[in-house]
């Protein structure tokens, strides 16, 4: 069935240079944020999230160009980016799980024996105790039966 008009209409006309400019800036900001994350974070999974953030920035830029030229190339490329991101996530997460099984940590620095000889070793310094524990848990009025067990089982985890 042919709809007379598109249900979710694009709100800015095609070929609009201001829209292209603004969308490219948004893509650049997302890409730069992902770059900072992958350079500086040490948790392997957060590093992969940062890589996905860079891919999102690229997608926004590609679709912006596609919109500007009135062409499907950017859309098609973004679909392939999605495909490759799915493959990459599957394979990479397997490696992350294997690395965790071997070292017990999700730390990139746990593999620093693979570094170049001229680089100095990363040494963890002593950290002060974490203050991330919330000051108070929300108080709820008691309802229902008190769960059996008690003691350790009823205590909440400090944080996720």
């Amino acid at each position: 069935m042919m709809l007379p008009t598109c249900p979710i209409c694009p709100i800015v006309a095609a070929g609009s240079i201001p829209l292209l400019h603004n969308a490219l800036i948004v893509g650049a900001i997302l890409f730069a944020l992902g770059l900072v994350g992958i350079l500086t974070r040490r948790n392997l999974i957060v590093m992969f999230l940062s890589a996905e953030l860079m891919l999102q920035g690229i997608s926004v830029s590609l679709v912006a160009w596609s919109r500007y030229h009135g062409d499907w190339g950017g859309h098609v490329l973004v679909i392939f980016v999605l495909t490759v991101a799915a493959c990459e996530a599957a394979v990479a997460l397997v490696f992350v799980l294997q690395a965790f099984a071997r070292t017990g940590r999700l730390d990139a620095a746990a593999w620093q024996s693979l570094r170049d000889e001229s680089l100095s070793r990363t040494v963890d310094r002593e950290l002060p105790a974490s203050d991330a524990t919330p000051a108070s848990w929300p108080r709820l009025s008691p309802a229902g039966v008190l769960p059996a067990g008690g003691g350790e089982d009823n205590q909440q985890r400090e944080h996720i």
Partner: protein
Amino acid sequence: MIAAVLPPLSPGVLLAAAVASAAASLWLLLPRGTENVAARWLGMLLGAAALAGFIATGRRLGGLGEEAVFLTVSLVAVISGAATIVTRSPVYAAIWFAMALTGVAGVLLVLGAQFLGVATIVVYAGAILVMFLFVLMLAQPSGLAPYDRVSSEPLLSAVAGAVLLGLLTLTIGRLSAEPAACCAVPSRTAAVAGEPIASKPSATDPTIADDPLGNDQIARLGAELFGRHLLAVEVAGLLLLVALIGAVAVVSRGEAALEADRGLLSERARG
């Protein structure tokens, strides 16, 4: 918008200030081992200032409604993206990333990519992100690990990211400033039809009539994908298959190797 309020600032100074405050704010917000509430608030303020600077470098889109929609979705994407890389807890980072994905999907919708906006939510937030969360639940020790509370070289990487962002903004500004007068590139559909976009007859709504990507979008995207790019689609299917087999192979091999290592270790401990 903000440039109208502060006329004496030249664009170069504004961009430099935005880049500097972006670098400082990222450095203050990134985990550095010490938790300082004042530094976090200062970082958020500087980040807001940097965002205001980048908004001021943006172009006017036309009507107030378009600008408000675009500003909202892009702010959601950018702020959640920044929160993804600065939160200490990886679970919260994954949740913030889902929020950034909704913002990006909104930007894609504004850009007229309806199918891709929905596909981003379904594929990324629905499948890939859930996979990340599964792995986090499998592998995360309870409590914050020290490697989540310390980053490696936060100052250098914040400066590098901000400088890259400044260069990209400069390039984009030049790029979009030039072709307005001399050489507007005609779209391919318009070129095939033999007429520029602007001279198309507008039926009811000029926005829809002028839009080569607007009508029957999914049908035309599918025709393009399975017409001109059929070979690439086949290759992508092959890639998915190889990734699947590879992931399963690595898991089974890795388990065997791990068992062998443990056996070796216990033998050494005994002997």
